[in-house]
């Protein structure tokens, strides 16, 4: 991109993507000249779209008509409104394509700097892609596959008849139905999400994918491409620093997105001491953290994933390094001796406080990170209970905590719809004796939950304009959004390399391999 010369309103040059499709993998950066004004405007328009996509995903099931309707509605108010029409036919709207392409690349620059930011951007872009693909006609879909060199051969009827039963078992369809479907043979690494869910028949490294599932393949390809591109961009970004007009704008952009990181505020450090944690965990911890706490008290131990998730959260609520040491040591040494503790665990704790290794100041995990990455295995206590606990068990557990039926039903239905942090918000209302759906904003960070809890307990969480928030069953949508944005979180861009610790570099691999 050439950002240098043109001013507002300057004419754009040729758009050079050699595909006739509007939907694309964004492989070729735009070559047209963009004015600084457009630069920012385009980016903001795309951000609106991505946020709409995120919100839609929180509210509705991604394949539902409500989801589609919501996104459509939101898109209407943006410069991307024409997307809705043009996705259906083949006509070439060069302005729209330019907007699409340029804005994507600008946000890539703005959101490449931390793993957290990359993850958010990647997720929303993938969902946007999925949404746009779903709007396309069958013939355009086929064309898309061909133009992106994804023209997989469908398998012959003969081959199909040999594995018909297996295909039927996997798809839960009758063999008759299978017979009429088109199947593709692809390498299993191309459809990892189907493999993971065991939703595909595998034989000798090949996955047999039904046409309907090809979107999963596309998403896989796009995810990999985007991860790689973001990592490369992040490495390249120091070279951009010479242009002092761009950088502030880029970091400004990435800060506009609210649902991300949580900065440990200097002012809170030291407010919490080790002996307060038992009490706080009962009153103000989200379920994921109170679960970690009790499982640590019970086992006098937490596995690595748990120590990271919990340790950084505690740091976020203001537990100082000294207090953290005290806290972990006193519990772990019920099982092991002090020597061993110092040898095995203290490094990691200091590391999280930026006192070892790369000396990065690690930020607490967001819900997104907890929910999306590193699912707990046997013996692990980390993760998000709404996502990672078996629904029946979760229900039982909540019942035992005397969560009222009205809340409970709502929570469970949100969980079933895959809206885990919405469920978490309903849970919050129940334990804080607030009316159902009182909280206007969904939690996106465990530390946000904690702060909101503290505010509520201090009587600061009152609906605007109403004196006493008694248990009216009415939804009060006017709740303190202002307050929210203050204790809200800004995206961290200081650290590109947010590896969890020295011993686990998967995330870097994931993005750069």
């Amino acid at each position, binding site marked *: 991109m050439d950002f240098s010369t043109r001013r507002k309103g300057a004419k754009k040059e040729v758009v050079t993507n050699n595909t006739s499709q509007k939907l694309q993998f964004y492989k070729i950066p735009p070559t047209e000249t963009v004015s600084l004004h457009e630069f920012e405007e385009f980016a903001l328009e795309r951000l609106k779209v991505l946020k709409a996509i995120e919100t839609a995903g929180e509210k509705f099931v991604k394949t539902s008509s409500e989801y589609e309707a919501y996104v459509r509605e939101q898109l209407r108010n943006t410069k991307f409104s024409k997307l809705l029409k043009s996705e259906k036919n083949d006509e070439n709207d060069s302005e729209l394509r330019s907007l699409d392409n340029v804005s994507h690349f600008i946000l890539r620059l703005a959101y490449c700097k931390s793993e957290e930011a990359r993850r958010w951007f990647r997720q929303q872009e993938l969902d946007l892609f999925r949404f746009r693909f779903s709007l396309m006609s069958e013939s355009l879909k086929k064309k898309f596959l061909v133009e992106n060199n994804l023209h997989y051969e469908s398998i012959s009827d003969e081959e199909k008849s040999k594995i018909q039963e297996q295909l039927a078992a*996997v798809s839960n369809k009758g063999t008759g139905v299978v017979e009429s479907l088109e199947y593709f043979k692809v390498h*299993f690494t191309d459809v990892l999400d189907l493999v*993971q869910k*065991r939703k595909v028949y595998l*034989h000798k490294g090949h996955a047999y994918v039904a046409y309907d599932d090809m979107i999963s393949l596309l998403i896989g390809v796009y995810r990999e491409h985007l991860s790689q591109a973001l990592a490369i961009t992040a490495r390249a970004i120091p070279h951009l620093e010479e242009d002092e007009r761009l950088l502030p704008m880029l970091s400004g952009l990435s800060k506009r997105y609210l649902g991300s990181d949580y900065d440990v505020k200097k002012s809170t450090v030291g407010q919490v001491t080790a002996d307060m944690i038992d009490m706080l965990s009962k009153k103000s911890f989200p379920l994921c953290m109170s*679960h970690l706490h009790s499982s640590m008290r019970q086992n006098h131990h937490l596995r690595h994933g748990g120590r990271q998730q919990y340790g950084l959260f505690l740091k976020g609520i203001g537990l100082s390094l000294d207090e953290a040491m005290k806290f972990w040591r006193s519990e772990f040494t019920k099982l092991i001796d002090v020597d061993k503790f110092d040898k095995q665990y203290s490094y990691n704790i200091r590391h999280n406080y930026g006192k070892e290794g790369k000396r990065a100041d690690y930020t607490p995990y967001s819900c997104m990170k907890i929910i999306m990455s590193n699912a707990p295995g046997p013996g692990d*206590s980390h993760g998000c*209970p709404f996502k990672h606990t078996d629904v029946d068990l979760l229900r039982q557990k909540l019942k035992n905590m005397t969560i009222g039926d009205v809340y409970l039903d709502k929570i469970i239905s949100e969980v079933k719809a895959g809206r885990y942090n919405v469920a978490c918000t309903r849970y919050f209302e129940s334990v804080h004796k607030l009316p159902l759906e009182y909280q206007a904003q969904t939690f996106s960070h465990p530390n946000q939950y904690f702060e909101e809890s503290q505010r509520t307990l201090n009587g600061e969480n009152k609906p605007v304009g109403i004196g006493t928030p008694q248990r009216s069953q009415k939804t009060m949508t006017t709740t303190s959004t202002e307050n929210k944005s203050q204790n809200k979180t800004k995206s961290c861009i200081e650290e590109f390399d947010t*590896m969890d610790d020295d011993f686990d570099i998967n995330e870097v*691999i994931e993005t750069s391999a």
Partner: protein
Amino acid sequence: MPEKTSSYDPESLPDLLPIYYKKLFPYGPYFRWLNYGGVEKNCFSHREFSFTLKDDIYIRYQSFSNEKDLTEEIQKRCPYKIDIGAIFSHRPKEHKTVKASSFVALKKELVFDIDMTDYDDVRSCCSGADICSKCWPLMQIAIKIIDRALRDDFGFEHLLWVYSGRRGVHCWVCDETARKLSQPGRTAIAEYLSVVKGGESQTRKVMLDDRPHPSITSAIDIVRKRFTDYAVKKQDFLGDDDKIKDVLQLIPEENVNVSKGVNHLLKSPFCIHPKTGRVCVPIDPDNVDSFDAFKVPTISEIVDELNHVEPTSEDGKRIKDYKRTSMKGYMEIFDKFLTNLEKTWKGKLIEQSGKLTYD
């Protein structure tokens, strides 16, 4: 280990290890494995090893330029345990000289770690760290299920199964595709293989719907076939479907740790288990049923054997010391694995030699 107690005494390990590393550790084949024919540059020299020395001193980020370098260092240090890690972007030894963000793990075998401790709910014989000839069949079932899925479903061919020396078994999947797998790829395979889903707070559920996934059907077949023998003769439970479910429940995830990260370390083959003294020998997956964990030689046995066998073979040619001990049969399994593996790079080397320029 209740059955056959060997003469091994953990106290003698510091005296035996130097002899083992001097005369018996199979450096040659070991290097041939990890060098992968030298097809990919640096794949040996950028590999991380870690050593556990006496008194639990643990040193990470060791790396070696070649077989000689490796041999000398192992003989000098006499590690109680050797772990193998990933192939990195730089020599692990020199990791401090590069920026942390550019020092990244690039490749590693896909590895599995199956441990018997977790079978405690189902076995009724011994418990905890021990195994006996009654519960070993559970392990064999697990090996068969995983071995089948890796070969038939994923198309992997180069699987190295290794006894961990006590109550566990490891599997190294060495195919190129496996070595290059991304972290999400590893996770996907792990989940695919797990019959039971979920962590501590989930109910243990075997997904046995009316029409299970073909991979589950195959697993059930394996259990059923082996179960009749196992249930009736060894343990006293009934061979009904519920028990089959129980056994199935144990397989993957609950006790098979698939290492999802590229950067995880796993104990190397041919280590000595410090508690039992047994050598971590390869297991032939085609003959799992005849693999007897209690016949695996201990370090004291093989060192002793050295003293009692003539150092040269009859025709006067010198043979490797390990071939003169009861490690011989296990080395043949390793050789078979290597021979197959070598076929994969022979073609590549020929291909490369045509256009190779020396730089």
